[in-house]
């Protein structure tokens, strides 16, 4: 890891000013930044430590939803009683991510800024070609070992999977990211790679995530996050689904359904086609299976990741059935 200048700031304003310097980057939990600095992917000149700021870690509920400060720890949000009651999928996405130690370190804001775990991206020495790291240099993943790479939202420049869990749940329930005064829908915050995979977030230089806003809804209250992976814990998703379901008074007709997917796409993936196919329908195994299959229409396979197109509809179906079985839908 190259050396850098360390700057501890006392206010968001001070942090913004410090970020104006060339090569300056924010340090929150540090779990991505220090990891990538050790890999030689991140080479900051100045590290701006915001972990000593106060007042940016509150979880505040009101009549229409919750606002979570950017410096709230993943573990704190996962365990929060209000989050567990009103947004179970948010809590579940958090405690199924990373490990207990990492969740005690990583912040909600930093979690959204985490980078892909594409092994080609993370190893500049062995794999100089990476359009995300060095725009225009090519993509070493295409034609390589692609078991964990994306099948949706890819481009000829990049097939790296977005590794987020929380972000998937945020996209499902229409959350907004607050950047000081500016707010942006979570779905628009994450960018498709297209021809510019180096740009992953709709955040301008000098902007800082200050909070996340999640609107309350019946679907969010009756929600779950199902994560299927190569090992039971402490692993990224092979495929995951955040699902929320609200039924009409008859207990069978689907009034509202939210489905977003992780582990299979270049950004947290809202499955609009699945939602549209189920809305207004009677809840049945046939309807669920039929709709779930729409999730991976248009998937582009690269070698080893074909299984994701088979696994994903099953994960969606299982998540919806789990909600029904729990009796909370």
């Amino acid at each position, binding site marked *: *890891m*190259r*050396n*850098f*200048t*360390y700057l*501890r700031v006392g206010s968001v304003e001070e942090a913004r000013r410090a970020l104006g310097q060339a090569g300056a980057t924010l*340090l929150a939990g*540090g*779990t991505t930044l*220090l*990891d990538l*600095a*050790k*890999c030689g992917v991140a080479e900051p000149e100045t*590290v701006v*430590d915001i*972990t*000593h700021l106060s007042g940016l870690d509150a979880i505040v509920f009101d009549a229409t939803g919750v606002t979570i400060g950017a410096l709230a720890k993943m573990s704190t949000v996962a365990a929060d009683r209000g989050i567990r009651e009103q947004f179970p999928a948010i809590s579940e996405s958090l405690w199924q991510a*990373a*490990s*207990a*130690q*990492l969740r*005690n*370190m990583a912040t909600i804001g930093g979690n959204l800024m985490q980078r892909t775990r594409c092994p080609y991206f993370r190893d500049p020495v062995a794999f100089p070609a990476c359009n995300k790291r060095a725009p225009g240099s090519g993509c070493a993943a295409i034609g390589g070992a692609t078991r964990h790479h994306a099948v949706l939202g890819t481009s000829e420049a990049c097939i790296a999977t977005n590794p987020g869990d929380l972000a998937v749940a945020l996209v499902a329930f229409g959350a907004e990211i607050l950047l000081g005064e500016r707010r942006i829908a979570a779905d628009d915050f994450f960018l498709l790679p297209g021809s510019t995979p180096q740009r992953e977030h709709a955040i301008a230089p000098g902007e800082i995530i200050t909070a996340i806003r999640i609107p309350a809804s019946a679907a969010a209250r009756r929600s779950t996050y199902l994560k299927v992976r190569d090992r*039971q*814990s*402490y692993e990224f998703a092979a495929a995951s689904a955040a699902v929320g379901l609200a039924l009409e008074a008859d207990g069978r007709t689907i009034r509202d359904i939210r489905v977003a997917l992780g582990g299979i796409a270049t950004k947290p993936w809202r499955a609009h086609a699945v939602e549209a196919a189920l809305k207004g329908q009677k809840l049945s195994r046939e309807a669920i299976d039929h709709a779930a299959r729409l999730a991976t229409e248009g998937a582009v396979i690269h070698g080893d990741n074909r299984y994701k197109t088979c696994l994903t509809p099953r994960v969606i179906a299982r998540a919806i059935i789990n909600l029904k079985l729990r009796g909370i839908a």
Partner: protein
Amino acid sequence: MTDRTIPLRLEINGRSHALEVEPRVTLLDALREQAGLTGTKKGCDQGQCGACTVHVNGVRVLACLTLAAQVEGRSITTIEGLGESELHPVQAAFLEQDAFQCGYCTPGQIMSAVACIREGHAGSDDEIREYMSGNLCRCGAYPNIVAAVRQVAEAMR
């Protein structure tokens, strides 16, 4: 550029340590190389194995992904600070249950286990496995580690 150092005062195991470190120095390296506390182990050095687990303000974190500068003013506990005159109950349980083979991951396992029990995440074997999953043991002592954690958790109920 590499000669940039900063003075730091860290509170480790109840004692104050004055250090002079480069900003890039992690808490793990500061503990081992500067404070002379080599009980905290360097396994992967990239947040994947848990061997470097320590407590900061009573919360378990990875020392390899924490900058020393970041934890100035916080209270740091390492394996050396767990039980100075006698073994901590979790240390004793690890011995009793033979919860290790080579022992390299053990300080991290024990620091993690102490926090896991304190958090209330040791209610069943499944819960212990889930909340201890950030600590890898390549000797495969997992069943004995779970037994040690369960033994202490049950004794405290």
